């Protein structure tokens, strides 16, 4: 039995449409026009204990709706969810005591209170045993380097500091599952790295199951063993990221700086993407030719100053994937 089981989830919203202006608002009170939006059509997947899943998709694809249903605050129209044997929305209070949730854009700490006071309140809200709480808290404080922040009111923290505190806050009750919704949004580079490193450690050393939604593909690259792409309310792909890359955009890039003017190349499976002075950017299909063979063929005939191979950036792969599935912003 998987730890998280999601079957045939469907959810339709009714959205009230309002005419602009004051008369529109008044009319809206009396008679509303409704538009239905099918946020989820058919979403199924399952997750084993200890997995780290990246959940991606364009805005409006159904990511947040799925996360809301999994965390018990939204009821689907049809389909089944079971997490550690509980149906989240039917057994909300019991369920939410076992999971941790971090929303990148919302705080769960108390704005005017020192961080440590917020932690203490969460201990009481989650009914954590005081002794156990001290151990967990001290570990989290050490791992996330929060020592100096504990006595500061949350409003005085930088975004990066606050996010570290938020993550600790979500883990004080030692949940076995962590939902991270855009945990690196708006963070500077060192904070992003710190968050990623921590999440990886948490997953590998503690075996906490992590479900991560993000628009930052570097999060996915650094963390996710497995990626689910969601679009138009359906699961479009569910595989390790490398498999997704192989299917969507297998090509590699070869960057060559020639000693003289770049030649016209005519090699099988190779295409010139860009020409810039003495440099060429080539795209090649690794199933037709390999990097060493291509480099050998070029250096045998031409004088070359520098050469290196790259894979297309992960953003490019995902953009191509959305494109192929017509999944761009709904």
């Amino acid at each position: 039995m998987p730890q998280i089981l999601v079957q045939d989830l469907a959810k339709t919203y009714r959205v009230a449409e309002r005419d602009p202006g004051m008369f529109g608002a008044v009319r809206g009170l009396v008679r509303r026009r409704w538009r239905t939006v099918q946020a989820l059509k058919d979403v199924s997947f399952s997750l084993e204990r200890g997995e780290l899943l990246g959940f991606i998709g364009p805005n409006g694809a159904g990511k947040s709706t799925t996360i809301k249903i999994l965390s018990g605050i939204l009821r689907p129209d049809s389909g089944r969810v079971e997490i550690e044997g509980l149906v989240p929305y039917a057994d909300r209070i019991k369920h939410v005591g076992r999971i941790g949730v971090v929303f990148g854009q919302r705080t769960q700490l108390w704005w005017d209170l020192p961080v440590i006071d917020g932690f203490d309140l969460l201990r009481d809200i989650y009914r954590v045993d005081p002794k156990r709480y001290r151990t967990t808290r001290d570990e989290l404080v050490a791992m996330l380097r929060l020592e100096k922040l504990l006595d500061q009111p949350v409003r005085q923290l930088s975004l990066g500091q606050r996010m570290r505190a938020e993550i600790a806050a979500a883990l004080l009750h030692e949940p076995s599952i962590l939902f991270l919704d855009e945990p690196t949004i708006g963070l500077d580079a060192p904070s992003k790295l710190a968050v990623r490193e921590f999440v990886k450690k948490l997953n590998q050393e503690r075996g906490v199951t992590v479900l991560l939604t993000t628009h930052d593909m570097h999060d996915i690259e650094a963390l996710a063993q497995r990626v689910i792409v969601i679009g138009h309310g359906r699961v479009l792909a569910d595989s390790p990221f490398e498999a997704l890359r192989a299917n969507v955009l297998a090509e590699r890039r070869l960057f060559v700086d020639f000693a003289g003017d770049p030649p016209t190349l005519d090699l099988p499976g190779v295409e010139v993407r860009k020409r810039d002075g003495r440099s060429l950017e080539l795209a090649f299909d690794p199933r037709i030719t390999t990097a060493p063979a291509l480099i050998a063929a070029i250096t045998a005939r031409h004088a070359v100053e520098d050469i290196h191979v790259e894979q297309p950036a992960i953003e490019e792969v995902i953009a191509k994937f959305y494109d192929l599935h017509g999944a761009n912003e709904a």
Partner: protein
Amino acid sequence: MNALALLGRYFSASMRSQMQYPASAIMLTTGQLASTAIEIVSIWALFDRFGAVKGWSFGEVMFFYALIGISFSFADFLTRGFDVFGTDFVRTGAFDRLLLRPRSAALQLVGHDFRISRFGRFFQAAIILTIATSTLNFVWTPQAALLALWTVAGGIAFFSALFVLQAVMAFWTVESLEAVNALTYGGVYAGQFPLSLYARWFRTFLIFIVPLACVAYFPVLAILGRSDPLGAPDWFLPLAPVAGFVFLGLAFLAWRFGVSKYTSTGS
């Protein structure tokens, strides 16, 4: 930790965060005291010109005014989270955060905030009660004191129910909350005067629909030892505040309905 102990923790957290800005807390409290004091001056002006109104003296009206003020200030203190529910929780999505915690949303809303400044109205009402006592040469027997406590308890339940209902409205619309504000603040104002001054339809409304009269007019008659000029039986007067608790129970039923609507529509 049980719910009551948790509320204690919330309470102390709220006090500490307001004490981050002590000057602001003191000024807001004084401001509430001063602004409510103006109300009583306007009522005094009325009675000073006309003497008694339909058999009610200024001292008696001050009694109504004071007990309503005390009830309202406590309810406002305890249910601030419901008062700001539409703007601070539904509109911002912060309500999701409450639902993600293993406690009832209502408990967390009560714990959300306890505004110190609400004691401005409380102090003002307590002063008025003292003045009313001496004006009427009223003697506080133990029975009268108990009855006053019971009246205030019913009043707190009644006004809390109004704030809860206001929050329930926010599940459907966050734009017409002023309409419910008219009920809460209008209720305070209407409760300050004896019921017999009002038109018949309005009296019916205040007894049976929004039972303000049951937590103000009727029990205060009992405290003052007067019979109801409208003819409600004497035995009923001290029992009337029960209606406040019934009203609160109904408000929480509506609240549960609202929460389940929210979790099925996500808005």
